[in-house]
């Protein structure tokens, strides 16, 4: 056997081993992603197919959402919207714009920098595995997951009655979108020192893509072509069907991936372009206090969710005038947003507040989940071996999370109020907007209480809190458009708020919900005081 063939065989062996390892690490999360994404896509498609079952209904929808440019900025411009596939693409557009890039980012980040940061990669690279193999394996596994998801999309759409060619092109354009972000995250994993950095910079890139597409669509310029989200849209699966447009994201993803591989094979293990700097050598008085430390722990997440809330309300506010014009021109649009039969401005605020409630509830669950991380990583044990009691520790966190929630709700509502007031020129809407935002607090707190109860009783089952959240988000985002049965809509606490300011705030329901939230919190606290720590 020649030396060269030995090397080739060795290389193949290393990559094979690495593929099996990455496959095993990713199996669970990849399956969850594939299942969740296909289920929400097929669920949306099937409901739309049932709801818009005649060409006339589809036409009404199409004219509704294309009047004005507001929705175009949010969901993207759907070419060929006057078809079943077009309606699906439009309805799924908002979720798809975030979920598919996230799929690519998480698949790539989990298997690369996270493994390197934890030191596990060092162990593997000491074996018969080349330096670039982990990145290559991560990209291959990510690609396989993305292709499978796209195939499930295509089959699901075809079953719902969407033409095969359009289904396939649409599914592939979404897959290519995820692929670009997988390549980007793989590259960022080579540049930043920690997995956290990979997520942060990837999400910033996603926000920029989203903004670029929005600007491009509203101004009707070629700026759209600068955004990966624009590339997916320009494939026009239900319009002109530009198959060649798929080559742009595929080429971009390959280029990013190749750059990542090149860096991976050249740089030192554990090195990074962006490194941490020195910090203060003493903690200030605030950090030494339980509440101060809790504020420090929750601050990044609070700012992140606040940015999300402000982005949403700012955009809705800025586009309010156009959206109002569109709704006056076409009542079917209001119907699609679930805000028919009301003052258009109230309808807009109500829809935005519901979306904001979903963001705020996500923050609360994530923040309680942070406690679980603190415990699993052993920091809670260190804290509780001190003079702070369990009740005081948990109460400090609960208080800080409540403060964060108020900041997110009030801050975002304020932005909505100001953004709608600026073009109109009066601030009469400000008070009702803030009031509507606050009215959702009990619904958000129920989710927080649920999260605390699960954390207190069985931290291992924390996924249940997120499952409850996913149900609530699904009902809030897609429920009105799809006209779910009432009992399903009633499952979400947000339903019982009364849809202010369109409907009256249901004070009694709010009191009941607050009581439930308090009971859940008390239960969680009592359970937390009784159980052993740490519990993974």
């Amino acid at each position: 056997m020649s030396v060269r063939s030995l090397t080739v065989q060795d290389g193949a062996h290393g990559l094979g081993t690495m593929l099996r390892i990455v496959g095993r690490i990713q199996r669970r999360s990849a399956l969850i992603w594939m299942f969740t994404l296909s289920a929400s896509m097929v669920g949306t498609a099937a409901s739309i197919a049932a709801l818009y079952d005649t060409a006339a209904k589809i036409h009404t929808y199409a004219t509704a959402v294309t009047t004005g440019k507001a929705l175009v900025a949010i969901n993207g411009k759907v070419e060929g919207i006057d078809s079943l596939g077009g309606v699906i693409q439009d309805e799924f557009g908002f979720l798809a714009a975030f979920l598919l890039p996230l799929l690519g980012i998480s698949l790539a980040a989990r298997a690369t920098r996270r493994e390197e940061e934890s030191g596990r990669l060092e162990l593997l690279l000491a074996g018969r595995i080349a330096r670039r193999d982990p990145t290559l394996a991560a990209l291959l596994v990510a690609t396989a997951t993305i292709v499978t998801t796209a195939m499930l999309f295509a089959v699901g759409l075809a079953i719902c009655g969407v033409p095969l060619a359009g289904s396939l092109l649409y599914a592939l354009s979404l897959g290519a979108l995820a692929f670009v972000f997988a390549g980007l995250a793989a590259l960022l994993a080579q540049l930043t020192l920690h997995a956290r950095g990979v997520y942060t910079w990837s999400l910033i890139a996603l926000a920029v893509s989203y903004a670029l597409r929005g600007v491009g669509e509203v101004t009707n310029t070629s700026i759209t072509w600068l955004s990966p989200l624009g590339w997916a849209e320009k494939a026009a699966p239900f319009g002109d069907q530009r198959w060649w447009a798929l080559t742009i994201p595929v080429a971009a993803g390959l280029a990013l991936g190749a750059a990542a591989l090149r860096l991976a094979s050249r740089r030192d293990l554990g090195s990074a372009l962006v490194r941490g700097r020195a910090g203060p050598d003493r903690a200030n008085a605030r950090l030494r206090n339980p509440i101060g430390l809790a504020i420090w722990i929750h601050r990044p997440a609070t700012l992140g969710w606040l940015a999300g809330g402000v982005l949403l309300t700012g955009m809705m506010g800025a586009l309010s005038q156009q959206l109002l014009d569109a709704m006056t021109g076409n009542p079917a649009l209001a119907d699609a947003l679930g805000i028919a039969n009301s003052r258009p401005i109230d309808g807009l605020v109500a829809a935005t507040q519901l979306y904001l409630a979903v963001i705020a509830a996500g923050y609360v669950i994530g923040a309680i989940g942070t406690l679980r991380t603190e415990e699993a990583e052993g920091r809670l044990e260190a804290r509780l071996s001190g003079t702070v009691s369990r009740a005081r520790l948990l109460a400090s966190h609960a208080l800080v999370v409540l403060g964060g929630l108020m900041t997110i709700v009030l801050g975002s509502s304020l932005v909505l109020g100001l953004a709608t007031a600026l073009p109109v020129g009066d601030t009469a809407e400000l008070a009702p907007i803030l009031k509507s935002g606050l009215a959702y607090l009990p619904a958000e707190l129920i989710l927080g209480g649920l999260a605390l109860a699960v954390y207190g009783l069985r931290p291992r089952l924390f996924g249940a809190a997120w499952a409850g959240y996913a149900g609530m988000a699904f009902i809030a985002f897609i429920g009105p458009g799809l006209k779910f049965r009432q009992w399903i809509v009633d499952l979400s606490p947000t339903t019982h708020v009364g849809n202010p300011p369109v409907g009256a705030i249901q004070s009694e329901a709010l009191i009941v919900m607050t009581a439930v939230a308090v009971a859940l919190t008390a239960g969680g606290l009592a359970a937390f005081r009784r159980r052993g720590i740490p519990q993974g």
Partner: protein
Amino acid sequence: MSTPVIHAEGLTKVFGNVRALDGLDLTVRPGEVHGFLGPNGAGKSTTLRVLLGLMKATSGHVELFGGDPWRDGPRLHRRLAYVAGDVALWPGLTGGQCLDVLGATHGGIDERRRLDLVGRFELDPTKRVRDYSKGNRQKVALIAALAADAELLLLDEPTSGLDPLMEQAFQQCVRERRADGVTVLLSSHIMAEVEALADRVSIIRRGRTVISGTLADLRRHTRTAVHAVTVADPCGLVDAEGVADYQRERLDEQVDSRFTIDPAHLDGVIGRLHAASIHTLTVTPPSLGTLFLQNYGETLDPDEGASNDSREEASR
């Protein structure tokens, strides 16, 4: 005798169908350094968590400073500092910030000692924890505990990840704290460390205390290993009182004898060796390692039982 700082009797702790503790007894007296020995998984960390009131024992009795740690944890914690087995710090804080946060967590921190320890352990307090090596993270937790105004230090395998120089610094610091009157419970599986520091030792196995006492107590019941090279054949050694495991080998012009001896009969045997004209002689008292392994029912060659460094000391 004064009340013990820690007193545990018949502790059991069951997780599902695993008995992590199975009738554990432990008494730590004020002012002593108590070595808490056992292999991985013997229940050392679980015991410490029960002592801290982080976990509730399934049955048995536990007292910390005469109080119940499960009911009265935070008040009792004011008087102690704890270093967990897996040191966990906040990755986004600097080492110095973590020191202060941990210091605030404990009853309070002695500023002068903090400054001194940061220097002695050569810690850069301006670096973020996520950029620290494992050893540096360990140093942060150790400094926080050693600088704390505490009467009791609970240390769970405190030197894992430290280099030998820092291990020396650690031992020196523990001796200083002991001189200040601080009680220390030192959980470890490193014999040399416990041997160097501990006044008393408890060895546990599968959640149960197998033996407890001072090192001298424990040694009294075990055998000393002797390796002698003599010019003549030492006569009568095989049948001498207290001798066991006798092995003899004739080298060119010398006789190489190895055996173990009951400490009470050491004198007589040395006399016989002397009569045969000693060329070299190595007498190795039982190391903690030997004691430990004996309690785990291992049978060992007399030479293997002694650790390398203590043998060197004896032959010097």
